[in-house]
């Protein structure tokens, strides 16, 4: 099993959710996050003083999937979240040791 974390732009959330549902993803966790990458921040102006906003707001999705679905899900996210301009985000994939469904106590693939 793998844990796929994807940082995306806010307005792409609906597209990404739909694309992931289409490839059979049953659940996603979404968090509002801030950070910077190549897009860096931007400057704003308040009462004549400029200030730099270093950390831009993004959304982070987390989804646990079985190994055979990883490339399918990644393609779905990339296609849906892509705009071509800087700041589209990134996808991280890590191994997932264990999953437990709290309600039933199921573990592993059954709990996905």
């Amino acid at each position, binding site marked *: 099993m793998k844990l796929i974390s994807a940082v995306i732009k806010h307005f792409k959330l609906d597209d990404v959710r739909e694309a992931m549902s289409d490839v059979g993803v049953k659940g996603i966790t979404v968090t509002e996050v801030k950070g910077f990458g190549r897009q860096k921040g931007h400057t*704003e*102006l*308040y*009462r*004549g*003083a*400029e*200030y730099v906003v270093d950390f831009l707001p993004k959304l982070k999705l987390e989804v646990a999937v079985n190994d055979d679905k990883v490339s399918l899900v990644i393609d779905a996210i990339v296609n849906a979240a892509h705009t071509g301009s800087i700041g589209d985000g990134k996808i991280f994939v890590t191994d997932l040791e264990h999953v437990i469904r709290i309600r039933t106590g199921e573990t592993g693939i059954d709990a996905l």
Partner: protein
Amino acid sequence: MENNIFALQYALDTFYFLIAGAFVMWMAAGFAMLEAGLVRSKNTAEILTKNVVLYALACTLYLAVGYQIMYGGGYFLSGITALDTDAVLAQFATREDGFSGAAIYSAAADFFFQAVFVATCMSIVSGAIAERMKLWVFLVFAIVMTGLIYPVSGSWGWGGKEVFGLYSLTENLAFKDFAGSGLVHLVGASAALAGVILLGPRLGKYNERGEVRAIPGANLPLATLGTFILWFGWFGFNGGSVLKLGDINSAHSVAVVFLNTNAAAAGGLLGALIISYLKFRKADLTMILNGALAGLVAITASPDTPTPVLAVLIGLVAGGLVVFSILLMDKFKLDDPVGAISVHGVAGILGLLVVPLSATETTFLGQLIGATTLFVWAFAASFVVWWILRKLFGLRVSANDEYQGADISECGIEAYPEFTNRT
């Protein structure tokens, strides 16, 4: 029959005065929202507490001693509440100019109208010293300010008393301050300036290299709402200061005052917009809001005399000037989170000095001496009071409390308990 007309005029002018006073009372809400919008969310509950308590203190202190110092009428208003109907009618009968003569209205209405002005003056101070002063120290200052400092200078302007027995602003200098560019706004700003000098800037406002670091306000919709509420209240502030509605000349004068007050506010807003666009290439919203208020402050010294085009110009200059003034204050490291000293002080002085452009009985020199008198008194008296308070209690909250926010340290509650941004 004539007595009935007089009774009607008395009722109309009293009613007009009361409604105008209620408009001015609503300015307290404007100040509260403007200030709550321009401070950080961690200081919201404290600035709101400050605004409501100062209003109550101002009304109470002015009732107890302030009105007596400024106009007479007795401590605790002992001399003004009893009504003698026959005496009122006799006053009408002997009045010069008859029906169109000076207004006669309930003394209680006069107190109410004057009292809400004191609260306005005190609100100016609360914005300038926001986010870093101990709440209790501010409230002690509010007692002295509303019970003594404001009424004393008020007595020189509107009470007709001599400045420490030396000279009379109204008799010797033909000083005109119609609704209080100087007596209310400049006096409040001078007290605020003395406080800001002794208090120091908010932590992190200026870095070691002397650069200004922006501390953006938490809620610009509230700041905008507050500005519009103040704008609305100003119609009572200036319109009520005509003191009379009940004859053709007075009614027309009230209409002119409304027109000019509105025109100057619009001019001030546009002036600030133009200057902020030329300087920053952006429409800096909070500067624009300050500009509208600067226009209002500037027209207040003589809203009844300028032509509409002059009123717009006065506002335009005041609004533009206030942008430069706010930038200059930061150069001197005088941290005024809401721009109160620039809006009420600089535009207040400007307003007093342009009175001779339209009010022919006044002189530039007389206005200048008047403005200087008010500034020196309010600044010096406040400086002494702030200085004593600093010696006794210290003016500032601790650095840690400032970091945590005055909501927690002063009020024990957060305005937004579920989401507080501590930056």
